[in-house]
C-alpha cells in the first residue's frame, strides 16, 4: 500500500514551486533541506525504485525474488482484458467528473454563493457526502442499490416495476458507481467554487452592472473568467481523484461482475496483492506511477502556467 500513498503524493509534489536559492538563503537550505530530502528519499523514491525492481520478477512475496522474467509482467498487464477495462473506467470517471460533476458543482455554487435564507444549510447538506468515509458510502449505496430490499427497489416497486440489480450486471455496474462518485464529490467542488466566488472582487461585477450588462453577460464575461484558476484546480482534483479511486469500488462491487468496474488501483489490489503476484502488482504500480507523473507535469506546464 505504500505504493499507493506515494502515488497519491506525487502530483502535489509536482505542484510545489521551485525557487532558485539566492546566496542569503543558501545556509538555510543547507540546514533545512537534508531532513526533508532524507524522508522523501526513504519513503517516496526508495519504494518507487523497489517497485520497479520487483516488477521484473515472478515472485509471490515469500523469501526474496529470484525468478527474473524481464518485462514479461508488463506484457501480462497489457494483455489483460481486465486492465483495459480498468483503464477505460478511469477515463470514464474523468469524463463524467469534467462533463457532469464540474458543471453541476459550478451551477450549485453560483446559486448558493448568494445570501438567502437557508443557503448555509443547503451548502452543508451538499457538502455532507464528502465528509462521509468512502467505505461507509460504499456500504450505504450497496444497500440502496440492492434489488430486493434496497431504496431503489422500493422506488421501482412504487411504480409496479421489477427493480434491476444495478451492481450485479456488467452493463450497469459502472453507471451505479459513477452516480455515487458524482453524489459524493460534487459538494467538495461546489465548496471550492463558493470560496472562489466569495473571494472575488465584487467591484468588477458592480461596474458591469452600471455599464448595463445582463446577468448572462456578467456570468459569461466576468464571473467565469475570474473562476478559471479554480476550475483548473477542480479539474485537477477530479482527475487525480479518479486515478486514486479504490475505496468506493471495494464495498460496492470489488471490481466485478466480470471485471467490469475495476479502476487501475483496484485492479492492482485484486490481481497483484490478493493473488500474491508481487511482480505483476509492481508492474501495474509502475505503470500507474508513470501515468500520474506524466499527467502532473503536463498539467502543470500547460494548464497552470499562469500561476
Amino acid at each position: 500500500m505504500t505504493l499507493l500513498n506515494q502515488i497519491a503524493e506525487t502530483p502535489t509534489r509536482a505542484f510545489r514551486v521551485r525557487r532558485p536559492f539566492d546566496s542569503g538563503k543558501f545556509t538555510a537550505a543547507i540546514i533545512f533541506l537534508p531532513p526533508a530530502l532524507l524522508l522523501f528519499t526513504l519513503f517516496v523514491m526508495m519504494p518507487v525504485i523497489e517497485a520497479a525492481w520487483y516488477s521484473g520478477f515472478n515472485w509471490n512475496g515469500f523469501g526474496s525474488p529470484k525468478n527474473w522474467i524481464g518485462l514479461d509482467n508488463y506484457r501480462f498487464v497489457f494483455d489483460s482484458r481486465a486492465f483495459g477495462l480498468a483503464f477505460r473506467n478511469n477515463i470514464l470517471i474523468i469524463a463524467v467528473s469534467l462533463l457532469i460533476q464540474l458543471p453541476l458543482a459550478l451551477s450549485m455554487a453560483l446559486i448558493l454563493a448568494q445570501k438567502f435564507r437557508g443557503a448555509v444549510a443547503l451548502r452543508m447538506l451538499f457538502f455532507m457526502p464528502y465528509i462521509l468515509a468512502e467505505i461507509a458510502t460504499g456500504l450505504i449505496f450497496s444497500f440502496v442499490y440492492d434489488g430486493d430490499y434496497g431504496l431503489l427497489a422500493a422506488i421501482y416497486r412504487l411504480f409496479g416495476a421489477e427493480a434491476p440489480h444495478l451492481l450485479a450486471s456488467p452493463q450497469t455496474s459502472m453507471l451505479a458507481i459513477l452516480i455515487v462518485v458524482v453524489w459524493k464529490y460534487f459538494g467538495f467542488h461546489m465548496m471550492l467554487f463558493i470560496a472562489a466566488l466569495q473571494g472575488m472582487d465584487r467591484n468588477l461585477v458592480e461596474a458591469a452592472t452600471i455599464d448595463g450588462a445582463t446577468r448572462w453577460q456578467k456570468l459569461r464575461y466576468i464571473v467565469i473568467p475570474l473562476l478559471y484558476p479554480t476550475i483548473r484546480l477542480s479539474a485537477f482534483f477530479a482527475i487525480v481523484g479518479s486515478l486514486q479511486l479504490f475505496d468506493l469500488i471495494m464495498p460496492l462491487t470489488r471490481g466485478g461482475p466480470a471485471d467490469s468496474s475495476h479502476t487501475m488501483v483496484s485492479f492492482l489490489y485484486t490481481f497483484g496483492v490478493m493473488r500474491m503476484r508481487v511482480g505483476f502488482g509492481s508492474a501495474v504500480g509502475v505503470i500507474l506511477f508513470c501515468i500520474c507523473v506524466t499527467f502532473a507535469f503536463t498539467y502543470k506546464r500547460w494548464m497552470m502556467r499562469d500561476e
Partner: protein
Amino acid sequence: MRMMKKAAFKRVALAATLLLLAAGAASAQTTIKWLHLEVNPNQVKIWEDVARDFEAKNPGVRVETQFLENEAYKAKLPSMLQSKDRPQIIYSWAGGVLKSQIEAGVLEDIGAQLGDIKNNLSPAAVEAFTSDGKIYGIPYAQSQVGFFYNKELMAKAGVDGAAIKTWDDLLEAVKKLKAAGVTPLMVGGADKWPLHFYWTYLAVRAGGKPAFDAALRGENGGFAGETFVKAGQLFKQLVDLQPFQNGFLGFKNPQALGAFGDGKAAMTLAISSAYHQQRALSADKKGISDDNLGFMDFPTVAGGKGEASDTLGGINGWLVTKGAPKETVTFLKYFVSQDVQKKLAAGNFLIPVYKGADEGLASPLMRTVAQNLAKSKYHQNYYDQSLGPSVGRVVNDVTAEIAGGSMTPEAAAKSIQEAFKQGN
C-alpha cells in the same frame, strides 16, 4: 498552564512506567498468538474455552486469539509471516499456498513433537500438511461440498432431492422449480468461489483424479484439455436455464447463505459448514430446521470418468510458524484431542479429523457428510487453494464469467491454462 503541563507530564511518566512493568510481567510467561478466520461466534466461544482450559492446565502459557477476515487474511499473509511478531499458529487450507510457505521456510516442522497423535487423525488430512516426510501443521476439520436443499420448497415443485443422481436430473429439477415459481439455486456470485464449486465438481466428475494429475503435469492440453472444457460446457447447460437468484453476481457468500436460510431458494451448492452458517446468517437466526433441510451429493455426469464417491471439499488446519515455542505444539495436540473434537462435533460445527469423533456429530446430515468423506478415495481440495492463489483465482474468475455469460467454456479453460503457464 505550567502546573498543568507538569501534572500531565507526570501522568505520562507514570503510565509509561506501568506499561513497562506490565510488559515485564508478560514476558515472564509464554504467549501463543493464534490467528483464526472463524465468523460464527458460537464456534469461536468453544475455541476460547479450549484456550482457557489449556491455560488452566499449563500455568505460564497464555493463548491469545486473533481474528482476520478471510480475504484480508489472504492479502496480509506473506508480509505477516515474514515479520518478527507473526502469530505462532495460523489458519491454513493446505494446497498451493502451503507449498509456497514451506518453500519460503517460514514454517516449523512439528513431526517429531507430534509423535503418535497423528495416528489418531484421518490419514488423508494429515497427508495434506505433510511434505517430504515433514509435517508442518495439524488438521482439525474436513468438509465436503454438496447441495443443501429446502424440502418444503422442493416439494412445492414436486421434486425429490434424494432422487437427483445425475446432472440431467438436476437440470430437470431446475426446470420444474422454475415452472413452479421457486428460485432453484442460491449462490454468492460476487465472491466467485461459490461458483467455482460447480465447475470444479463437474471437472472432478468428468475426469476424476487422473485428469487433474495429468493437467498438473501439462498433459492432454493441461487445463485447456477436454475434461475441463466439458466441465464448462456442462456448467453452461445449467447457466442457460437461469437457475440462480436475481442479481446473483452481486451477492456475497454470507448474504447468499442467509437468504437460503430464509427460504428464498430451493437449493444451494455449499461447503458442509453451511449447515450451521445458514442458521447464524438467516434473518431470524433459526434458518431452516433439521427436518426441512436435505443434503445431496453432487450429481454424476454421463460418461464421466470420476467415481460417484469422489468428493470436493476442504481440509482445514493450523500451521506452526518458524521459531514458535514448543508449547505451541502442546496446545495444538490438546486442540485435536478426542474430547475437544467431540465437543466441536456435538455442536455440528465441523467434520472432525479425530478417528471416531464423528460419532459425536448430533446431526444425521453432518454424519452423512462424515461418512461420504470416509468413503471417498479421491478428495479434491478446492481448486482456488490447491492451485495456489495466482492460478486458483483465475478459476474463480472464469467460472463467474461463464455464469455471467461473458465467456465461453473453451475460452475459460484456455485462460486457466495460460495462468497456469505464467504460474508463480
